[in-house]
């Protein structure tokens, strides 16, 4: 009963100070929206991955895989005929573009219909016509496909209609032989990204010859005998592994990306929390007299505590609901932004998936409420700590705040130390690192009152403060109201430091990537295959190119993705000495030594590969690779920086590769042009002469760099959104603080006006106050932002991806920090200054 009345009193206050209360609501709404949007994006990535792999894997327990190009279908035949293992299904997978769906990329899946019934729901789905007809139909005529009803509707086709599938620049006409209807939503969504055909048709369309992508098997959990017997009889470079393990390793690649996204969104929530803390603190301070009176009337400390918590949670609840709606809208944009990046870097994301579950919403709402609760705890504790007598005296509050400064400072130093200690631990646990980062941020916030005090004392020595009353008043007001201004400064400092930190990180990353591109892409022109999955060029192409004038030299590259084994996911590049030069993190000897070693069979590995496989970055090691001639050891002669493959890169000399793998195929050709030759003209010439007979994608050095940078920029678009959000929250936070401070001094300002302060002098004083708050915030954000950047680059980024980046800090970062802080503060002070200046002096004097 008492709480209800008290809550009504509290909410009445908030109703009377609507703008302030709105700011609490907006602060939490923005934080919750960001968290929800990122959570939706992450859930969508998860679901998309699930649909693209898990649903289509069905009951499969193990998979036989080879290299990126697949392996001979004789392995399948031998399994069945020679070794009597009949529970297996060959699969061919590739990607095609569908003309009728505006060139949308879909998975082309070639299956053996008779084997399929054991594995997937696809052909156990309801189908029209009946399943038996589909089996026979797929097998009897080539070029027949099955698609889902959903896909058929989108392409506006029906049974008997044609679809145009484009692969390696070639068009293949297929007939829709049947429409599939799934029993469950998961399969329905999975099927919406797939075109199913028989193995022979898939082999033909994907130009795989007699190769297959994998064989799915069902092996009982305890059946080690079968597993071992299959393993024993597999040819070199073909391995068997649990299906879940393979999925997990692919999934793990994108999980770091998701975790970093989530961390960014939590930073946004943290900033929102400061906004709430700020506002609630002011509302508590403004009502100290009221609390004193309530206490004098017999309201207990506990009742005051719950009153403040209760009002904040109610406002937080409203804000969280608003945030949910905003988050859903933001989520659409975020999924689009993030989806492009995931497709660029990890796996093709389904565009039909938009995963929002009640769990996402409950989680976001819960976070919003928890954030509101946590933000209100300290102001509530402050409110109950005041005695009725002290409530009246303004100076008593500031005296109390001043006494608290040493304790806060020690607390801040402890948190900083703890944070540093956590970050010093060598771990791959990102959660731990982000905890350390949080400690650093909070520790810095606790040091703000002490540092602000000293900075203002320093400013008071300036001639401007000595001789200009409005400036002196401004400095004094900021200094003597530290219980309020310190909170505003801390909140703004944190927000601006996030902007600085993320800005430095992105710029450092970009600089490093550009540097890497400069070091790696040295040829003038590159040719690669058109097939995303099995890039290969015609073996006659080099000879055909040699006849073209303008080409000085050409180099052949073979790139093979290791699909299984210890280094699954890594890419093996076979190339010649002339184009193997890299930027070294470590090398075994001098420059010429390492290239000699390379020529004699040593390999170079990328930094990511070294990090993921436990190699120390200050020494080499041995890599054991499965070759056609059995397992071979290759000494590591150098570790280089590389951003091309998530799981790492191994460079080996072409001749050595051909010797051990017996593979003469070509993945790419690098061309050096004659000096003075226009590269674009040479590209046109090559296209004119060879495009009719050969399939390739040709790019200039410049366009490859541009595309790489575009992918990079797309990846970090989300950080731009975060920076904008942080700036907005910074502005709202400081607006709130400044407005509260000025409103609280309405009467005092009335007195100044009554004693002859003009409006322009008033503006000067108020804007100077705001400017001081902004300047101190910006100044303090510089070291914190730099430290944040350092942590993001050298700890978190390293743990997530294994990359070493240059640390690029320019004066523009710092100027930007101070600029944002000062401008946000000045802009925030405009309306309050105007509102107070407009007030009649008599009215101002009447204000309690």
């Amino acid at each position: 009963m008492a709480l209800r009345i008290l809550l009504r009193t509290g909410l009445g206050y908030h109703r009377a100070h609507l703008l302030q209360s709105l700011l609490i609501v907006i602060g939490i709404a923005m934080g919750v929206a960001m968290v929800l949007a990122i959570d939706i994006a992450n859930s969508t990535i998860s679901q998309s991955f699930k649909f693209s792999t898990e649903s289509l894997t069905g009951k499969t327990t193990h998979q036989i895989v080879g290299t990126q190009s697949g392996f001979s279908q004789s392995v399948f035949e031998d399994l069945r005929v020679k070794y009597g293992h009949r529970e297996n299904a060959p699969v061919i997978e590739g990607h095609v573009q569908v003309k009728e769906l505006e060139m949308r990329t879909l998975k082309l899946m070639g299956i053996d219909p008779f084997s399929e019934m054991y594995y997937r729901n696809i052909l156990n789905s309801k189908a029209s016509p009946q399943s038996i007809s589909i089996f026979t139909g797929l097998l009897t005529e080539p070029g027949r496909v099955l698609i889902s009803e959903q896909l058929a509707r989108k392409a506006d086709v029906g049974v008997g209609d044609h679809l145009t599938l484009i692969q390696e620049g070639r068009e293949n006409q297929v007939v829709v032989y049947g429409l599939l209807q799934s029993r469950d939503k998961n399969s329905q969504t999975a099927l919406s990204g797939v075109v199913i055909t028989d193995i022979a048709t898939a082999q033909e369309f994907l130009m795989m010859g007699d190769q297959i992508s994998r064989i799915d098997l069902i092996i009982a959990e305890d059946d080690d005998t079968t597993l071992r017997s299959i393993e024993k009889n597999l040819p070199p470079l073909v391995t068997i592994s649990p299906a879940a393990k393979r999925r997990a390793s692919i999934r793990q690649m994108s999980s770091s990306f998701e975790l970093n996204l989530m961390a960014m969104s939590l930073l946004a929530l943290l900033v929102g929390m400061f906004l709430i803390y700020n506002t609630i603190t002011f509302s508590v301070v403004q009502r100290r007299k009221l609390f004193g009176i309530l206490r004098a009337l017999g309201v207990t400390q506990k009742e005051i505590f719950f009153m403040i918590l209760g009002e904040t949670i109610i406002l937080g609840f409203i804000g969280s609901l608003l945030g949910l709606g905003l988050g859903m809208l933001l989520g659409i944009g975020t999924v689009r932004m993030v989806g492009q990046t995931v497709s660029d870097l990890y796996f093709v994301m389904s565009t039909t998936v938009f995963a929002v579950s009640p769990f996402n919403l409950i989680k976001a709402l819960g976070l919003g409420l928890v954030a509101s609760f946590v933000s209100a705890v300290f102001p509530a504790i402050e409110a109950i700590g005041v005695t009725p007598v002290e409530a009246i005296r303004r100076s008593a509050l500031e005296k109390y705040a001043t006494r608290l400064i040493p304790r806060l400072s020690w607390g801040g130093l402890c948190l900083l130390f703890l944070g540093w200690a956590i970050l010093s631990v060598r771990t791959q646990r990102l959660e731990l690192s982000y905890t350390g980062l949080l400690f650093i941020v909070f520790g810095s916030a606790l040091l703000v009152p002490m540092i602000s005090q000293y900075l203002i004392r320093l400013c008071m020595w300036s001639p401007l403060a000595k001789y200009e009353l409005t400036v002196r008043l401004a400095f004094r007001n900021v200094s003597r109201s530290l219980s309020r201004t310190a909170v505003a400064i801390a909140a703004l400092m944190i927000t601006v430091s996030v902007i600085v930190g993320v800005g430095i990180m992105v710029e450092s990353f970009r600089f490093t990537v550009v540097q890497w591109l400069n070091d790696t892409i040295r040829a003038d022109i590159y040719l690669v295959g058109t097939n995303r999955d099995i890039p290969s060029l015609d073996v006659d192409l080099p000879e055909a190119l040699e006849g073209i004038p303008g080409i000085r030299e050409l180099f052949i590259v073979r790139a093979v993705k290791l699909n299984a084994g210890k280094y699954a996911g890594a890419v093996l590049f076979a190339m010649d000495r002339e184009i193997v030069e890299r930027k070294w993190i470590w090398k075994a000897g001098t420059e010429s030594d390492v290239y000699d070693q390379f020529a004699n069979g040593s390999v170079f590995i990328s930094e990511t590969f070294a990090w993921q496989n436990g190699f120390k970055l200050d020494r080499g090691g041995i890599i054991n690779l499965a070759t056609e001639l059995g397992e071979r050891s290759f000494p590591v002669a150098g570790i280089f920086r590389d951003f091309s493959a998530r799981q790492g890169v191994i460079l080996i000399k072409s001749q050595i590769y051909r010797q051990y793998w017996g593979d003469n195929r070509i993945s790419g050709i690098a061309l050096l042009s004659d000096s003075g030759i226009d590269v674009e003209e040479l590209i046109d010439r090559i296209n004119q002469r060879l495009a009719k007979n050969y399939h390739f994608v040709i790019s200039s050095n410049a366009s490859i760099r541009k595309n790489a940078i575009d992918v990079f920029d797309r990846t970090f678009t989300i950080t731009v959104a975060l920076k904008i959000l942080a700036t907005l929250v910074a502005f709202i936070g400081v607006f709130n603080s400044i407005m509260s401070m000025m409103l609280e001094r309405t009467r005092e300002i009335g007195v100044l006006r009554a004693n002859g302060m003009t409006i322009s002098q008033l503006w000067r004083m108020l804007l100077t106050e705001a400017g001081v708050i902004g300047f101190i915030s910006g100044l303090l954000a510089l070291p914190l932002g730099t430290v944040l950047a350092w942590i993001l680059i050298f700890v978190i980024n390293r743990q997530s991806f294994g990359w070493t980046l240059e640390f690029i800090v320019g004066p523009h970062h710092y100027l930007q920090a101070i600029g944002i802080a000062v401008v946000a503060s000045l802009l925030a002070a405009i309306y309050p200054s105007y509102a107070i200046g407009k007030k009649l002096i008599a009215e101002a004097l009447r204000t309690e």
Partner: protein
Amino acid sequence: MAIRLQNINKCYVEGGKKQIILSGLNAHFPKGKFSVVLGKSGSGKSTLLNIIGGLDIPDSGEVFVEDRNLSILSDYDRTIFRRRNLGFIFQFFNLIPTLTVLENTLLISELDGSDRQKSKKAAFDILEHVGLENRLDAMPDFLSGGEQQRVAIARALVNNPQIILADEPTGNLDQYTGLNVLKMMVRLMRERKKTLVMATHSKEALAQADFIFRIENGLLIPNPSEPMPGSEF
């Protein structure tokens, strides 16, 4: 002339209802005299003083202070005029909490950009007159009510304004302190030949006043037992 008000009307809107405070009020407060304005709470005493001081604007009518028609001045001009010609003493002292005693006293001269040396000398002088020469660096929160009001008096007088407006200056003080403060104000006012208009309920103030007025029903009525202002001229 000092202060003349002609046909002043002023109302406030509170809770949707119009409250008429002053209705066709005419007043003349003679120069160099101590005038007291009496009236019930809410009768409009403070409103009258605020209008005289340019802190509030009447709905209609004219306000002449030292021959300047305040009604036609811009806010800026009113502010400058107030700074140089008027001193305010409030019931609740209204010192600036972040300024010391000396700084509060120097407030107006600093706002006006006056000569610092001269202003400081004048401030020391007036603070000595009010007995606070030893509390120059004290903050308002650590002064007693009487001391705060003395600082307010010093602040009001330091720039040598012609007119002092005091709104219940002893209302927040105990009787003894209030009497001392009142005596100090009147003494300083007479020594410096200033015009003092005071809204008050204090009997001691009535006893020392040259003229007594009462606000009733929005009008200023001279106390019948006292001579009409201007009659001596």
